[in-house]
C-alpha cells in the first residue's frame, strides 16, 4: 500500500509538470506576435466581409436598376412601335383613298414624259 501511494504522488507531480509546461507554452503563444497577427487577420476579414456586403447590396441594386431601366426602354420601344404602326396605317389609308388614286392617275403622263426624256423628277 505504501509503495502505491508513492507512485500516485509521482504521477501527480508529473501531471502538474505537464500542465505547467502546457500553460507556459500557451502563455508564450499569447505573448508572441501570433495573437496580434490573428487579431489583424480577424479585423481584415471583418472589413472584407463589410466590403462584400456592400458589393452585394450594390449588385442587387444594379440588377433592380437595370431591370427597371430595361422596363422603361421596352415601354418606350412599344410606344414607338405603336406610333410607327399608326403612321403606316395612316399612309395605307392615304394610298388607298380615291383622292390619291385620282391624283396618281392624273400625274401619270408627266411621270412618263419625265422618264422618256430622262429629266430628274420631283
Amino acid at each position, binding site marked *: 500500500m505504501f509503495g502505491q501511494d508513492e507512485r500516485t504522488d509521482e504521477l501527480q507531480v508529473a501531471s502538474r509538470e505537464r500542465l505547467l509546461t502546457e500553460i507556459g507554452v500557451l502563455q508564450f503563444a499569447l505573448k508572441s506576435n501570433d495573437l496580434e497577427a490573428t487579431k489583424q487577420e480577424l479585423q481584415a476579414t471583418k472589413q472584407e466581409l463589410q466590403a462584400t456586403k456592400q458589393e452585394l447590396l*450594390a*449588385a*442587387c441594386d*444594379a*440588377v433592380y*436598376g437595370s431591370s*427597371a431601366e430595361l422596363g*422603361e426602354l421596352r415601354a418606350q420601344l412599344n410606344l414607338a412601335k405603336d406610333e410607327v404602326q399608326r403612321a403606316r396605317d395612316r399612309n395605307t389609308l392615304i394610298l388607298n383613298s380615291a383622292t390619291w388614286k385620282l391624283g396618281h392617275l392624273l400625274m401619270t403622263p408627266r411621270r412618263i414624259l419625265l422618264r422618256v426624256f430622262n429629266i430628274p423628277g420631283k
Partner: protein
Amino acid sequence: MPFFSIVTPVYNPPADALLECIESMKNQSFADWEWCVVDDQSTHKYVQTILQRAMASDSRIRVALRSTNGGIVDASQDGLDMATGEFVGLLDHDDTLDSEALAKVAATLLANPDADYVYTDEDKINSDGQHYDSFRKPPFDQSRLRGQNYCCHFSVFRNTLLDDIGGFRRGFDGSQDYDLILRATERARSIVHIPEVLYHWRVVPGSTAGDSTAKPYAYEAGLRAIEQHFERTGIAAEVTKLQPGSYAHMFTLLPTSPLVSIIIPTIGAKSRVWGSSVRMIEHLVTNIANMTTYDNYEIIVIDDLNAHPGYAVPFDQPDHSSSRRTSVFAITQPASFYEMCNIGFGHAQGQTIIFMDENSQVTTPTWIEQFLGQMIDPEVGIVGPMILMDDGRIESSGISLSPNPHRIGWGNSSLNPGMWGNSAVARSISGITDTCFAVRRSVFHELGGFCPEFQHHGADLDFCCKARNSAYRIVWTPTVRVIHFGTHQAHICADPKDLLLLTRRWKRYLDSEQYSLVG
C-alpha cells in the same frame, strides 16, 4: 354579365333630390339591375307618391314600405334582404349615379372574376347641380381604411360575402356602411378600385357630405367600428377621434419585440436647436435614449471622420449584452449619405432598420412601436413618419411623385388635415423622405439598399419605387412625429443628374401618381 341589386333606404329626402336619384337609376346604360328601395316610414307624403310612380314606371324598381321607423340600419338591412342580385350596390336616397356606373362596374367584375368588393371615385354635387370636391381615391389601402371610410361611395359587394358577414349591424347608425366595408374587406378575396367618378354625393343641409360634424353619433359609431375591426384582426390598438370622419390609431401591444437597428450617418454637424448650438448627432442620440419607450434597439452611428477633424463622436458603447447599445463605426473614405446608410446596414443586427438624418429629433415616445405596428401587415415594407419643421409646420407628410417629386403638406400647419385627410390619417403612399423611415431588414437586403449612384437626393425615392415594384406597400403615419432641423424645400431631387436617373428608372411611377391625387 353580373346582375346588380341597388339598395336604397329612404327617409324624407328632398323631392327634387329623390327624383334625380330615380332618374339616375333609370338612365343606367347597363340594364341588368333591380333597385331595392325601402321607405323607412317617411313623414312627408310626397315620398310615397314619388316612389309609387317610379315603381309603376319601371318594373325593375321594387319598393318596400316599413311599418315602423327603424332607422337607417334596419331600413338598409331590409333592402339587403330584398336583394336577389349577384352583386349589391349602395345608393343613398338623395345621391346620383353616373349613367355609366353599373356598366363600368360590370366590366370591372368581368375582368376581375375574384373581386368581392368594388369601389369607385366620387364627387359632391350642390343644390345648383354643380359638381365639386372630386375625390380621386387610391388603390385599396387597409391602412387608410383604418383611419377614414375613404371607399364609401360607390360601393358594390358580392351578395354572398354580405351573407357571410351578416349584413348591416345595429348600433352603428350613421357609420353602418363603414362597419360593413371594414368587415367585408377583412374577408374579400379581391378588392378592386375603379379610378373614375361614378357617384355624386349630394350636399344638403344636415347631410354628412356638406358638414362632417352634422351627425356626431355617426362619428362615435365609426370609432366603435374601427375598434371592433382591430379586435377581430387581433391587433392591439387604441383608436382616437381626429376631426369628424377621421380617426387615429396607436398600436399598444406588439406580438413580438424584435431588435431594431437605428442607423444614423453623421458628419458631426453643429447647428442651432432652439437657440442652443449643439452637435446634432449628440442631440439626436440623447433624444432617442430619453424619448424612446421601446427597449430592444441598437443605435449605429456611421461617422465620416473626414467631415469633422478634431471632433470625436462620444457614444461608442458596443456592449453587445445591452439592449440599448450604441456603436460608432468610423469611415475614412468619402461617402454620400446613402452610402453611409448602406454601410450602417452592414453592421446592423436588427430585423427592422430605421434610418435617420442626424438633423432630426423624435417627439413621439412610442415611435418604434408605431413603426412596428404598421409592419404587422406583411405587405408593408416601409413606414415613414410626419416630418415637421422646427417651427411646427409640416415639412413632409409623405412624397407625391406627380407632377414632380414634392413633399405633401409642405408649409402647412400640422393641425391642417389636408385635402381628404391626406395629412391626418395613416395611409399608403408613393414615397417617403430619408429624414426618417423604417424598413424591414429583409426588404432592404432584397432591394439592394440605396443606389449609390445618387449623389444628393433621390436614392430614397428610388428605394421606394423599388419597393413598390416588388409589391411592397409604403405607409406614412401621422402618429409618429419627427422634427427636422435645417433648410427646408418643397421640391426634392433638385439635382438634374439625380432626377434624370430617377426618371430613367421609374418614369412609369413618376407619370402616374396613385396615392395622392387631388381634384
